């Protein structure tokens, strides 16, 4: 497969590009920013062709998911549950988030030879829906503080956030967090937290004045999860399966939007295509792609192209198109996985009603600790945590036996995201003239000291209220390991080579728009997908307004 694909790249360089399509705007990719661009273009009355690699779940897992979705959790077949849990056998992407036990979100498409240094945690996603298949579903927007140095301000994303929440569910509640992060619209309703999740939030609230003085902001998680009655038909049934994928589809994935638009005939969708490069020709854009099924290279002409293939893929397409240098850099918002010992109320062993996504969001904004705000998404005890602990530490688990569950019930895990200025980065380099690509870490010498200061700050502030950070067990994800990265072709009011304008156009182009997080000037800590979608909406809407067709 790989050899064939390489051969095709060479062949394409010699071929006369046949025209296979024209008319609609091309959206490259089918992840969240692609869905947002497609929705915005359709809203402006434009025609849209979505071009995607489009890998999907293995048939046996999809069948199991469908059987589970057709009934209530107590009627699920043990074999289906076992097949779709993260511990399921047969998934090869150990260490990467899985969807219904599958590695589909990170599976190689066999076209591009990608060599990833062990010190890099990022992988491209070729799945329909991209990384939104496995996202944490957080819906906090960026503030002006986050956008320091960007050529746009937060209010310019406001319409985008609102538009996205027309088709993305919004679970949350009005609480103290609204002071810093005003609700974008009235939430669909609150999700039931785990007992420990509720207890942690109550404890934080009791100590709010002291925490606020130390630079902490917190509130209930706002999540792209459907809440409604009756469950499971209309909303979360609290089955505890969140981290493996929601069998009922109540956690939003961009695949849902793309599928819906395709089903309703609103977009044309062409999957099985790995886009290699884009170029401007005459009054349009030429998209060159490799068909996964083999055959000659595919070329598509379009008046405009919106690049939303996901940061790694988009960056590589731009490099292979000569719109980025052969060695480019992707900025990462690095993740620190920090376990906490929770000294407080917690749920009973076994299933308890409560979702198992992040329960609480905490933001530490204290310039003495870090120049930029740090976001913590806090996961409390759930069944999956015990399973994961067993998987990660088999010896310790064997030693503890049944007591393991007692220990994990007292654990919470914070996934802490740092601003890209305070994180390691990723270099992407074309090798052999673009035949293959190498990803390598670019270390930030200041990052470790920031991570340490942050953990000390948590110990001082959260330790005394019973949420004790277990610093020795903390694990720094390699760059890209938290899946919050971008900024390979940053937006600028004066774009030079390697940058794009505020409509995502790489310098010297007029009809190619980068709409995923590749065009972010930096990657703030915190949820990236929601802002990526809002920015994609902003660009697509502005372009459609300027160029009505």
């Amino acid at each position, binding site marked *: 497969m790989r050899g064939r694909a390489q051969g095709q790249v060479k062949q394409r360089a010699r071929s006369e590009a046949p025209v296979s399509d024209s008319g609609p705007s091309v959206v490259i990719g089918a992840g969240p920013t692609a869905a947002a661009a497609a929705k915005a273009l359709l809203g402006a009355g434009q025609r849209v062709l979505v071009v995607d690699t489009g890998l999907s779940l293995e048939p046996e897992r999809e069948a199991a998911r469908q059987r589970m979705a057709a009934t209530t959790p107590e009627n699920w077949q043990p074999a289906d549950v076992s097949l779709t849990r993260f511990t399921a056998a047969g998934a090869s992407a150990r260490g990467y988030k899985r969807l219904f036990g599958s590695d589909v979100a990170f599976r190689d498409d066999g076209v591009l030879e990608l060599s990833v240094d062990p010190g890099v945690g990022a992988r491209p996603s070729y799945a329909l829906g991209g990384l939104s298949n496995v996202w944490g579903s957080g819906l906090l927007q960026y503030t*002006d503080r986050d956008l*320091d*140095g*960007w050529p746009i*301000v937060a*209010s310019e994303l406001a319409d985008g956030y609102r538009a996205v929440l027309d088709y993305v569910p919004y679970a949350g509640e009005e609480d103290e967090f609204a002071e810093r992060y005003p609700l974008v619209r009235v939430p669909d309703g609150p999700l039931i937290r785990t007992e420990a999740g509720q207890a942690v939030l109550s404890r934080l609230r009791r100590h709010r004045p002291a925490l606020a003085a130390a630079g902490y902001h917190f509130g209930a998680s706002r999540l792209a999860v459907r809440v409604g009655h009756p469950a499971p038909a209309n909303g979360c049934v609290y089955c505890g399966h969140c981290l493996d994928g929601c069998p009922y589809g109540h956690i939003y994935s961009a695949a849902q939007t793309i599928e819906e638009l395709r089903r309703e005939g609103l977009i044309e969708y062409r999957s099985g295509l790995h886009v290699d490069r884009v170029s401007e020709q005459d009054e349009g854009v030429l998209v060159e792609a490799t068909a996964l099924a083999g055959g000659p290279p595919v070329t598509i002409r379009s008046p405009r192209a919106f690049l939303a293939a996901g940061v790694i893929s988009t960056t590589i397409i731009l490099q292979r198109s000569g719109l980025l240098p052969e060695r480019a850099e992707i900025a990462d918002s690095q993740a620190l996985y920090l376990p906490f010992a929770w000294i407080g109320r917690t749920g009973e062993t076994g299933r308890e009603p409560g979702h198992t996504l992040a329960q609480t969001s905490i933001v530490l904004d204290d310039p003495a600790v870090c120049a930029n705000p740090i976001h913590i998404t806090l996961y409390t005890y759930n069944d999956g945590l015990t399973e994961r602990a067993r998987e990660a530490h088999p010896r310790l688990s064997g030693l503890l036996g049944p007591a393991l569950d007692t220990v994990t019930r007292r654990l919470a895990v914070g996934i802490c995201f740092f601003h890209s200025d305070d994180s390691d980065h990723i270099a992407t380099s074309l090798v052999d003239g673009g035949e293959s690509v190498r990803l390598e870490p670019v270390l930030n010498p200041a990052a470790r000291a920031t991570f340490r200061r942050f953990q000390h700050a948590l110990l001082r502030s959260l330790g005394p209220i019973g949420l004790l950070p277990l610093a020795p067990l903390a694990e720094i994800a390699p760059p890209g390991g938290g899946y919050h990265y971008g900024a390979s072709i940053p937006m*600028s009011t*004066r774009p030079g080579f390697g940058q794009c*304008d505020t409509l995502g156009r790489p310098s010297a182009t007029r009809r190619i728009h980068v709409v995923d997080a590749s065009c972010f000037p930096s990657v703030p800590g915190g949820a990236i997908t929601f802002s990526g979608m809002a920015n994609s909406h902003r660009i697509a809407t502005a372009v459609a307004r300027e160029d009505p067709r």
Partner: protein
Amino acid sequence: MIGVTGANGYVGGRILAHLRASGIEAVALVRRPSAADGPARRYALAEPLEPSLLDGIQTVVHAAYDASARGPDIRARNVTGSLPLLEGLHERGGRMLMVSSLSAFAGARSQYGRAKLELERAVLGRDGTVLRPGLVFGVGAGGLFGAMVSALSRRALLPMIGGGSQRLFVTHDGHLSELVADLVRGRAEGGGPLFAAHEAPTTLRSIAEQIAGAGGRRLVVIPLPPALVALGLRSAEIAGIRLPFRSDSLRSLSHPIGLDEVSSLARSPIAFPALAPELWLS
């Protein structure tokens, strides 16, 4: 010799002082010259030009703007009222360096922005140079920034239109003055309009947060609905009540220059810094 109009105002005053400190001979062109101004001549917008006003002057830095004008007077005083100076200078082979504003752009909704734009075109048509600064700040600043510093020195509570979320650009007065000095010395290329601000925009709220933070306070914003404020300001203006903030300023703030136009503006060799406490705290 360089003439500077508006030299009794914040921006004109800073430019004049910097020119003189840089060894450039500069004369204040002001309504009421006084000994404290140093070399000064009498000049007022919309008044006939004194024949001797421009004697020995090759360049006029035009920073005067009559903010007290209302309605049709805005154009009459600031655009038509500036033309005698522009024409007189042009006839003598001199040039005008106009301190305009990023509120001036095609499609601007404010009368202020439209007046500045019209005068910009006249200046550029006579080989002049146009600078477009954003919100000007610096030590002991006047204008909106000075008003914010003053308000936030008393309390960290600030009513802000729309929560202060509108996009704006900031310009450090020292760097603006330096750019003017470079231009009058011929060290920087004129023409324009030249974007004269920090490249990354900010918001009034962020500015207020920084000012409050520099004073060790946490800002509390009282968001004011823009439509309600516009109505209140218009009503006050119709009733003849003079307020420090005009409905026209609200239009400028609420409908800022497009980013495409910002991108298309020419750049000067001066890189303008972002707002930072050391640049406004004495």
